[in-house]
């Protein structure tokens, strides 16, 4: 196998990867400090006991409380979206007002360089706040958060990804980066926010705030939490785009790796509540309570149902290839930039500086474009712009380039879709597309919370509209108005960058509120994906790869059937006896070089597999000192229940914090009650795709490999599976590395 790649394993305390300088610069770097989530339920005796005790009514209540949790998730996500929207509107409004007044003041006198500096400083100041909280307090809140949620739902435990602090930093960060004029959107982070809300609400407590409401205790398990996080992601999409069905499909297609039918209906409920909450509270904010006209953070406005001609449907398919190409170029550039950032810009202060520089340059570029633009439009008193800037236009006209920058990006997208033909000068659109493309590419991956949806839509809408304006060069009576081509361009560009298919189509259909555009949108997304995939992966997959996450994809790499479990597994395996000495357990758990999380339990003579126990369970057992000797001496001692494990979840203390005295080390621990007595096992000859399927379908974390007399031979974990991938030289194996 081609061994130029390295999987870097987690080493605790380091948040950003650094890489050994290697000649193999083409390598896909993978980074992992990650352990995994237990999506497989441990059916130990405690669990069975609890199930026995639970009445029929109890299960009914559980089902109802799942619905209640989903409703709460939707409601809170909608509220957060509403808060972000209002804050952004207020702050950007203030900024535009100050800058516009300043420019007007200096237009005649010729001190515009001062306005430029003011603008750049204002932008940098906002972005500085946003970058500082991200870089210094919570690096995981950077970016859109979609790759992180995708990994979480795949079963990778990304540290601190669903904590309250992350949510706070995320929300504040998004507000700052959008108000700071960066080429970013606030839609992507909504998905992460929704996921954090879901993970928090479903637990009925906040570990950060040390408050336990004593509700939803049953849901304090990875499996239950995962399902709610899927709902949260869907609610986030739904609030961002006003697309409840799109949200569910996004969760199904893009985010979640595990799914069941009941979940769909509940998640749909969360999505609906989310978009309705946002809609309602925004209408209250806009002083029209009850006029529900803002289902999402972005609103495409209404398109007329008349697609006009069959030719439109056919021509718009041609929007796909350029979308795919531009998307692939975007992803490739961003890939190289991210590698550079990982290698050289990994200190927080450097990251803050970089973000501020990008903000300043964005302001400068915008200013230059406004300054040298001669595109003037007559003022419209009735449907006027919010911040018309005259600059060097004739009196009674405004600089149309300035409106593009003095608007929230969502509004600019809407303008590109709906402004009547003739509103934009082709040159303006061309220059705008190019600069925005590079700025967006440069911005994504900074240490700020920000999404890539809106910039993609804006770039695409600009070149789509440009094409729409150019088409009537061929004097046929078949062309639709340029706004529709802007929609097609936006879809193509977004599809080319993120490569989503079904969910993106539905999101766009719902955002336009028009089923008639379904087929054109679908065709354009399809072609964009086909063309884009030929050159480069989707942006989120690239970032998952660059973070070195051991991601278990939906299928085993092709041509891997010859690999068997014997080659894949780790061996020899560290196992425990059913009744094990405490000292042995403590020593093994404290061994930092191995850092295993799952241990097969065996009965000796002959050493046959009889169960599987997790590190987290052992730690709870050690903490409660469940030793055989103590149980004998103190008969009144309370029996350990499943609740004790749930109370420690999800932040199990490290082994170092558990004190075990010298005497206690000699005690024995009986694991029978606590281990999972029926772990999944495979024989040594099982092929890799078969193992892969088990992991992917059941959400396994550990798979024991046994020989024909049920003796433990090896253990397959997710890291063992994620090592293999299909590269240019056939099947490649990544090596594990550690900083």
């Amino acid at each position, binding site marked *: 196998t081609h061994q130029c790649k*390295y999987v870097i*394993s987690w080493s605790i305390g380091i948040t950003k990867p650094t890489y050994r300088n290697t000649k193999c610069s083409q390598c896909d770097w993978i980074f992992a400090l990650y352990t995994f989530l237990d999506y497989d339920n441990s059916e130990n005796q405690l669990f069975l006991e609890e199930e026995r005790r639970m009445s029929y009514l109890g299960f009914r209540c559980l089902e109802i409380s799942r619905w209640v949790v989903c409703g709460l998730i939707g409601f809170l996500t909608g509220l957060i979206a509403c808060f972000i929207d209002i804050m952004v509107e207020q702050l950007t409004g203030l900024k535009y007002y100050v800058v516009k007044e300043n420019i007007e003041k200096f237009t005649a006198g*010729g001190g515009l*360089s001062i306005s430029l500096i003011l603008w750049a400083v204002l932008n940098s100041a906002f972005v500085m706040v946003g970058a500082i909280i991200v870089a210094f307090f919570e690096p995981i809140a950077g970016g859109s958060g979609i790759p992180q949620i995708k990994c979480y739902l795949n079963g990778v435990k990304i540290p601190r990804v669903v904590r309250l602090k992350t949510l706070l930093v995320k929300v504040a960060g998004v507000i700052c980066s959008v108000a700071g004029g960066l080429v970013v959107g606030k839609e992507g982070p909504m998905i992460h926010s929704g996921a954090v809300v879901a993970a928090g609400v479903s637990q009925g407590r906040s570990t950060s705030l040390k408050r336990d409401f004593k509700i939803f205790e049953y849901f304090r398990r990875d499996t239950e939490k995962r399902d709610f996080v899927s709902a949260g992601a869907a609610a986030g999409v739904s609030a961002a785009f006003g697309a409840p069905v799109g949200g569910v499909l996004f969760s199904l297609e893009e985010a979640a790796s595990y799914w069941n039918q009941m979940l769909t209906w509940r998640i749909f409920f969360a999505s609906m509540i989310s978009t309705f909450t946002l809609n309602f509270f925004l209408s209250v904010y806009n002083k029209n309570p009850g006029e529900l006209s803002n289902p999402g953070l972005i609103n495409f406005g209404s398109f007329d149902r008349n697609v006009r001609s069959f030719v439109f449907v056919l021509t718009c398919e041609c929007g796909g290839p350029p979308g795919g190409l531009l998307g692939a170029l975007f992803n490739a550039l961003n890939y190289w930039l991210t590698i550079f950032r990982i290698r050289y810009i990994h200190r927080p202060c450097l990251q803050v500086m970089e973000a501020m520089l990008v903000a*300043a340059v964005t302001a400068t570029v915008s200013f230059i474009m406004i300054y040298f633009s001669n595109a003037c439009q007559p003022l419209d008193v009735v449907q006027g712009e919010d911040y018309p800037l005259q600059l060097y236009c004739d009196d009674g006209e405004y600089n149309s380039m300035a409106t593009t920058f003095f608007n929230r990006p969502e509004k600019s997208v809407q303008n590109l879709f709906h402004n009547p033909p003739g509103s934009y000068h082709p040159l303006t659109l061309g220059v705008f597309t190019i600069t925005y493309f590079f700025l967006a590419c440069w911005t994504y991956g900074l240490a700020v919370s920000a999404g890539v949806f809106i910039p993609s839509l804006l770039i695409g809408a600009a070149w789509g509209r440009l094409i729409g304006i150019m088409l009537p060069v061929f004097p046929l009576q078949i062309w639709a108005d340029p706004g529709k081509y802007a929609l097609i361009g936006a879809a193509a560009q977004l599809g080319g960058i993120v490569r989503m298919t079904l969910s993106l189509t539905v999101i766009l259909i719902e955002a336009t509120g028009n089923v008639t555009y379904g087929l054109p949108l679908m065709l354009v997304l399809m072609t964009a994906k086909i063309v884009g995939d030929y050159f480069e992966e989707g942006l989120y997959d690239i970032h998952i790869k660059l973070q070195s996450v051991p991601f278990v994809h939906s299928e085993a790499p092709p041509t891997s059937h010859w690999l068997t479990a014997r080659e894949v597994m780790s061996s*020899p*395996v560290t196992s425990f006896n059913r009744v094990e000495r405490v000292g042995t357990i403590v020593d093994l758990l404290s061994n930092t070089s191995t850092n295993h999380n799952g241990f097969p339990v065996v009965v000796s003579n002959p*050493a046959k597999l009889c169960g599987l126990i997790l590190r987290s369970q052992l730690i709870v057992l050690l903490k409660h000192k469940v030793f055989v000797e103590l149980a004998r001496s103190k008969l009144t001692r309370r029996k350990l229940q499943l609740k004790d494990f749930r109370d420690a979840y999800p932040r199990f203390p490290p082994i170092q914090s558990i004190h075990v005295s010298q005497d206690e080390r000699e005690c024995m621990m009986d694991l029978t009650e606590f281990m999972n007595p029926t772990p999944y096992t495979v024989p040594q000859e099982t092929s890799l795709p078969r193992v892969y399927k088990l992991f992917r379908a059941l959400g396994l974390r550990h798979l024991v490999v046994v020989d024909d007399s049920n003796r433990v031979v090896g253990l397959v974990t997710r890291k063992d599976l994620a090592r293999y991938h299909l590269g240019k030289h056939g099947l490649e194996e990544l*090596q594990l590395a550690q*900083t």
Partner: protein
Amino acid sequence: MQLCKTSAFAVLTVVTLCLSTTVDSDIDNVSDEEDASRYLSGLSPVLLPAVDPLSSSHTLSAVVAQDLEINQTCRNLATIFHDRYIAYADCLVKSARPVGVCLNCFEGYALLSEIYANISNDKDGPGNCRDSLLRSDRLMLIYLLYGNLQNIWRNSACEHCVNTEQQAVKNQTLYFMNERNQSISCFDQYKQENHSDLCVKCKSKYESLNVLYGGMEKNGSLCIDIEDAMNVTRRLWSKNYNCIAPREGMIPVIAVSCFMLFLPIIFYLSSYLHSEQKKLKLIHPKRAKSNNSLMNIQDKFS
């Protein structure tokens, strides 16, 4: 937003109309003559025309329908509507360019809406003119015609310039027009000479006009007449006489921009040169080399 408001208004109108049709009242003991005279006395300025436009039609159907449907009162009302409609439309067309639809025609509109109100309120009269004139056929021509003119009036935002109750132009509008005429006469005075001279001489007048306009824009007291007058003045000022401010201070702007664009290059270069990279250690994972070496801890211990 605008659209929403308009549609909301439309809905409201429909609702009101529906309501007013359902309400029936029994007080119609007034005779035709009394009724007509009551109307006519209210319409002082316009004299009754000699020829009735409805009875002057010569088609058979009209002759038949005449006696069946339209009584004299309604016919009189229709005649008045006809005249006033023509007068107002005539005025509108004449004041299309330069726009003067508010200031020139507001009286005509007031008269027209008055007679229309009379027609649409006449639901209790013997002939029920509202029903017979406005809604006895599919086309509802009078309703349509009036609706169109009403739209024109509304779109021109004439209420902002004209006080509809007192039938007079607002003082603010008059003041603005006065100011504007001063600017124009200033332009006329100097336009024969060098244009740059005009720009200097008329600057103060023009700018005060601009400020005035800006103030009116803010408190929403613009109508189409004022907007158009201002647009024409601005176009004269910027396009014809070319009095727009020249681009000044371009060099500092370029210098600052270059500096800003240069900063990232320095940043990336310096971080490339000065950044240290941490070494990284490869882990050799425990793998089964061959079947012989397969041994787990249990085996070792036992």
